[in-house]
């Protein structure tokens, strides 16, 4: 369990992390999302005790990281950004070093090393030196390092960066499988990844925590949530549009595509509360009243991408504002 309270980090006059609080329980995967330079890595470095916080506290398994540093760090496995590892060592020697630091001995040590080698598919390159490894293997070596001690908490800074699609899928599956008895924090900027493996996610922008919720919750908060798309058999799309606009609760209607037989239109609900998700029923009713047939009708649950764009300020916008 990791608890972060009112965490602040100043780099000289620059405020990198501004009053961030959250917690991760055992059995939960927390996604950490934000534009580049938002303060994700800085926050992770404070959680793992690498950087001291300017103010605020981090508790790992109820141990304050600034007071009980060594004990608290023993409870966290950490994959730093860029997956650093000693380049002149072999994969085997590197993992042995990590095992020794965690005071693993004899059979337990061998078993722990074999276990992570198997999970991360490193067995066939165990005698290769790390500087000869490809980016993907290197990241997996460092990932293996973070899992070696089987700590109850994992902090992973961009665990799938630099992996090919198959490896990405595998690492996601791996994280998902470990989730039942661990508290996991992972940062990423791949939105599908968040939806695939995270139970909860927080978005951080310019050092501030903007939101904290399940991926579904946050999707529903995006502006395109509740939008109804309908494909109607008609030749006159404008007429249909006028009819649909007449439905109460519709803000506006746009024609997406039209051809000889069908027109696809999207309807934006005017309501912003939960009632907007019932718009499709009204549309279906209206179409049957008018004796129109339709081959497509669905309500968008919203997309993380849209939500992300809406809540974070893009760099170009910042520049324009300045």
């Amino acid at each position: 369990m990791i608890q972060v309270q009112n965490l602040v980090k100043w780099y000289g006059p620059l405020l990198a992390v501004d009053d961030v609080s959250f917690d991760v329980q055992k059995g939960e995967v927390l996604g950490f999302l934000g534009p580049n330079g938002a303060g994700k890595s800085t926050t992770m470095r404070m959680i793992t005790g690498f950087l001291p916080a300017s103010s605020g506290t981090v508790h790992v398994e109820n141990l304050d990281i600034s007071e009980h540093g060594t004990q608290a760090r023993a409870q966290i496995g950490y994959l730093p950004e860029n997956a650093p590892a000693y380049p002149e060592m072999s994969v085997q020697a590197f993992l042995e070093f990590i095992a020794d630091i965690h005071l693993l001995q004899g059979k337990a040590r061998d078993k722990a090393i074999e276990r992570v080698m198997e999970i991360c598919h490193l067995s066939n390159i165990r005698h290769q030196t790390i500087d000869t490894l490809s980016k993907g293997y290197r990241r997996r070596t460092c990932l293996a390092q973070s899992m070696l001690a089987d700590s109850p908490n994992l902090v992973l800074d961009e665990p799938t960066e630099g992996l090919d699609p198959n490896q990405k899928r595998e690492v996601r599956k791996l994280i998902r499988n470990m989730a039942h008895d661990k508290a996991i924090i992972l940062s990423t900027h791949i939105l599908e990844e968040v939806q695939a493996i995270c139970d909860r996610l927080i978005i951080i922008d310019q050092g501030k925590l903007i939101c904290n919720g399940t991926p579904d919750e946050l999707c529903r908060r995006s502006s395109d949530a509740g939008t109804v798309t309908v494909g109607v058999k008609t030749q006159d799309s404008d007429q249909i549009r006028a009819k649909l606009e007449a439905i109460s609760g519709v803000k506006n209607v746009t024609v997406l595509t039209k051809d000889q037989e069908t027109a696809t239109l999207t309807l934006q609900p005017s309501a912003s509360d939960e009632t907007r998700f019932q718009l499709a029923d009204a549309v279906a009713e209206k179409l049957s009243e008018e004796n129109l047939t339709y081959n497509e009708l669905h309500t968008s649950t919203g997309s993380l991408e849209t939500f992300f764009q809406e809540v974070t300020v893009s760099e170009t916008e910042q520049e324009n504002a300045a």
Partner: protein
Amino acid sequence: MNRTFSNIKTIAKRELASYFNSPVAYIFLIIFLVLTAFFTFNVSAFFERNEASLSSFFTWHPWLYLVLVPAIGMRQWAEERRSGTIEMLFTLPVTAAQAIFGKFFAGWIFLGLALILTFPMVITVNYLGNPDNGVILTGYIGSFLVAGVYLAITILTSAFTRSQIVSFITSVVICLFLVLAGWPPVTRVLPPWLDSIVAKFSVMPHYQTLQRGMVDVQDLFFFVSVMAFALFATGVVLRSRRAG
């Protein structure tokens, strides 16, 4: 306590292995052995002196170490910081003090090994005459302590920078000061009142006492306190660098 000892050992072992995994160790050993032999036999004219002692061998050590020890120590923290492994190291259950001592001992053991490999000198001088082996032993102890002082200073400069070259040059300059401050050609030029203060910082008078076969607690205290100070300062520097 157990954990402290174990962590220092683990880190020292890794560091020592990394010396031998790169060509640095072998190049260092060869250069060190060739140069000590060259200076002893050719420059100091070991045979012409006709003495059964290794003074012509030990005289050169503080000068040889001046470039060789920084070459061994410069990478210790500079490389950790450049490659980012420092972030991994300090998020493991290891304290900064354990890491600093572990790395220092690795370097010192390596330098000790280089010294041990000069054993043919001892055999030669014993074969040719009857040297005082006690003096030779204190000579080795003095040489080992000077190497330790240089190493600790190099480790300190290494913590300041990501660049091994910067670390190398800075430590050569600092160590050169430690040598010259007590070297007669320099001290003769200084006014007497300044001379005694500057000379206090020098490794030379302490080294020379040991070369004469005398073990004085004051000299040992000097060496140990300079090493302790430099390593403590390394800890302060690493901490402040992380604070951002």
